[in-house]
C-alpha cells in the first residue's frame, strides 16, 4: 500500500509537469490550429535560462522571472517570424515549421549551454515522510504551481471575453474577423501564453528531473500525448491527461517493468487516437464557444 501511494504520488508530480507542457499545446491549438512541436523546447529553455541565471548570482525568484520572460520573447519571435508570415496555415505546415524551430532551438541550447544535464536549485530542498510515503517539497511546489497555472489558463479561455474571442479564431476564422477579432494578434497572444506556461513547466521540473538541451524532446512528446487525451482543445483534459500519464508511467515502472515506462505514453496515444480521436476528457469543449 505504501509502495502504491509512493508511486502514485511521484507519478502525480511528474504528471503535473506533463500537464503544464500539455496546456501549452492546447493554448496554441485552440486558437490557430497550429501544433507547436517546439513546446518541449520552451520548457527546456526555461530551465536552462533559470539555471544559468542562478549560476550568475541572481536570486531564484528573479532567475525564474528572467527565464519566463526570455521564453516568452522567444515564443513571440517564433510566432512573428515563422507562423504569422504563412498565408494558408494547415496543421501539416505547422508541424513542419515548428519541427524546424524545435531543431533550431535545440542546436542553439546545445551551443550556448553545453551538453550536460543540470538541475535548478529547489525552492526548499529536502522533503518529509508521511505514513511511509516520502515527499519532496519541490513536488508539492510543482503540484501547486500546476494547479494555479492551469486554473488561470482555463479561466482565461473559458470565462473571459478575450479568451473566448481567441478560441473563436480557430473555430470560425471568417466570422471572428467579421466581428473585429484580429487573427494575427490572437495567434500572438496564444504563443505568449504557451511560452510562459512552457517556461514555468521547465523551471518547476528542473530541480527534480534535471534539464539539458535535449530534455525538451521527451517533455514535448509526453505533453503532446497528454494534450491529445483532451482532444488538443481542452485545458481540463490536458491536465487530467498529464496526471493520468504520469501515474500510469510510474505504476508501469514499479509493477511491470521499468523498461516499459516510456512506452506507456505511446500505447496510450495509439489507443486514444483509434478509440476516441476527439479526446477522452474533452468532448464538450468544442460545442461551447
Amino acid at each position, binding site marked *: 500500500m505504501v509502495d502504491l501511494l*509512493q508511486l502514485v504520488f511521484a507519478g502525480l508530480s511528474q504528471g503535473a509537469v506533463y500537464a503544464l507542457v500539455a496546456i501549452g499545446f492546447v493554448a496554441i491549438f485552440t486558437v490557430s490550429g497550429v501544433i507547436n512541436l517546439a513546446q518541449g523546447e520552451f520548457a527546456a529553455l526555461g530551465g536552462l535560462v533559470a539555471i544559468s541565471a542562478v549560476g550568475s548570482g541572481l536570486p531564484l525568484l528573479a532567475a525564474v522571472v528572467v527565464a519566463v520572460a526570455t521564453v516568452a520573447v522567444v515564443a513571440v519571435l517564433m510566432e512573428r517570424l515563422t507562423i504569422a508570415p504563412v498565408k494558408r496555415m494547415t496543421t501539416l505546415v505547422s508541424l513542419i515549421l515548428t519541427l524546424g524551430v524545435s531543431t533550431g532551438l535545440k542546436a542553439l541550447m546545445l551551443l550556448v549551454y553545453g*551538453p*550536460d544535464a543540470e538541475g535548478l536549485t529547489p525552492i526548499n530542498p529536502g522533503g518529509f515522510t508521511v505514513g511511509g510515503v*516520502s515527499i519532496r517539497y519541490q513536488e508539492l511546489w510543482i503540484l501547486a504551481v500546476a494547479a494555479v497555472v492551469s486554473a488561470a489558463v482555463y479561466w482565461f479561455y473559458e470565462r473571459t471575453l478575450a479568451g473566448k474571442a481567441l478560441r473563436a479564431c480557430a473555430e470560425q476564422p471568417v466570422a471572428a474577423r467579421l466581428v473585429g477579432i484580429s487573427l494575427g494578434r490572437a495567434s500572438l497572444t496564444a504563443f505568449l501564453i504557451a511560452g510562459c506556461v512552457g517556461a514555468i513547466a521547465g523551471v518547476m521540473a528542473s530541480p*527534480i528531473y*534535471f534539464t539539458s538541451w*535535449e530534455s525538451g524532446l521527451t517533455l514535448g512528446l509526453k505533453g503532446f500525448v497528454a494534450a491529445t487525451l483532451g482532444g488538443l482543445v481542452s485545458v481540463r483534459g490536458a491536465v487530467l491527461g498529464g496526471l493520468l500519464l504520469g501515474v500510469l508511467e510510474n505504476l508501469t515502472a514499479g509493477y511491470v517493468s*521499468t*523498461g516499459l*515506462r516510456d512506452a506507456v505514453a505511446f500505447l496510450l496515444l495509439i489507443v486514444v487516437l483509434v478509440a476516441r480521436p476527439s479526446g477522452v476528457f474533452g468532448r464538450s469543449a468544442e460545442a461551447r464557444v
Partner: protein
Amino acid sequence: MGRRTNPARFVAVAAALTLGLAGCSESADTGGDGGSADESGPITVGAVLDITGAGASLGVPERQALELLAGQLQAEGGIDGREVELIIEDDQSTEDGAAQAMNKLVNEDEVDIVLGASRTGPSLAMRPIAEQAQIPMISLAANAAIVDGSEWVFKSAQNDRVVIERMIEYMAGQGWTTIGLARDASGFGEGVQEIFDEVGAEAGISVVAVERFAPDATDFTAQMVNLRDAAADVNVIWGIPPAAGLAQRAYAQLGITTPVMQSHGIGNQVFLDTAAESANGLVAPLGRLVVADQLPEDDPQREVISTFVDDYTAEYGEGPSTFAGHAYDGWQLAVDALREVGTDPQALRDHLEGVEDFVGISGTFTMTPEDHSGLTKDALVLVTVQDGEWTLLPDQGA
C-alpha cells in the same frame, strides 16, 4: 586547440579518394601499410566520443583531455617529426552514431588508430568495423565484452569484472551476502548481474533483486521503492552520471538506510553535483585519479596522475574526471605504439598486445593476447564521499 579538420576539406578529400581509389581499395591493404599511411605524412588518430546525449558527462572531459594531449604532442614536434592529427567525432551517445562515425574515420579519413567510444554500447557497435578494417581501436568504456576474444580492439577503462571483484571483496569483508542491484539498461549494465553472481558465488554472495533504468532516465522512485522492498544487505547502483546521481538522490530521499555501493562509472564532478549530500557514505571502486592528492608518496602512479591533473586543471580550470583519465590512457597507449612501430596497423596491434607495466592514470597496464584490457583489481581503490569530496576509504577491505 582542437585539431578538427574542417568539413569542406573532408568533402574534397573524400571525393578525391572515392574517385582515385574506386578500383583498388581492397587490394591496397595487403601491403600491410593500411590506409593513407605513407611514412612521412601526418599521423591521424580518430576518436569517437559521447559528446552529446546520455554519455555527455563522460565524452566532454574525454575530448578535453585528448585535445590537451594532442596540443602538447604538437608542441613537442609530433612523433619522429611527423605531425599528429586528431579527428574527433560525436556519436551522440548512440550505437548507430558510433558505427557511422567509425565508418567515416576508417573509410574517409583513413585514420591510423581509433580511440573510443566513451560507453560500452557504442564501443560494441564500433568493434566489428575495427575488426573488419583491421584498424587498432582502443575503447574508453568498461564492459569486458568489448574486448572479449577481439583481435584489433583494446580498452583503457577497468573491466567491469575487475570492478566487481573489488566490490565483492569489500562486501565479503562486511559480512553482506545479498545484493539489490539497480543497473543501467544499456550496454554498460549488461551482464553485470551474472558477473556479481559468478564472482560472489565463492563468498556466498548473490543478487536477490534487479531493477533497470535508462541511461537518460530522470525519475527513479519506482526502481528505488522496489529495491527497498527487496531488503538486501547492500544495494548497488550501477550507472553513469547524471542518472547514477539522480538514482542516489532518490535512494536517500526515500529514506533507505541500507548501505549503497556504486560502480566505477561515477568518477566525475557531475556525479557529486547531481547526488549532492545524498552521496555521503557511499562506497565505490574508482581509479586513483579522483583521490590524487591523498595517494601515498610511493604510489607508482602518483607522478603520472599529478602531472596530468596539473596540466588539465591549468588548461580548463577544473580537475579531470576518471573518464578524462581513460582518454589519457588510450591516447598515451596509442602514441607509445605509434612512436615505437610507426603506422603499420599490424605492427601497432602487435605492439599494443605486448604492452607491459605501462603506467597510466587508471592503473598499470599489462596486455596479453587473452587480456586486451590490461588492468587488474589493483587499479582500483575504494573511495567514499564526504561533504562533496572523494575520500580514500581508510579500510580498503582487501
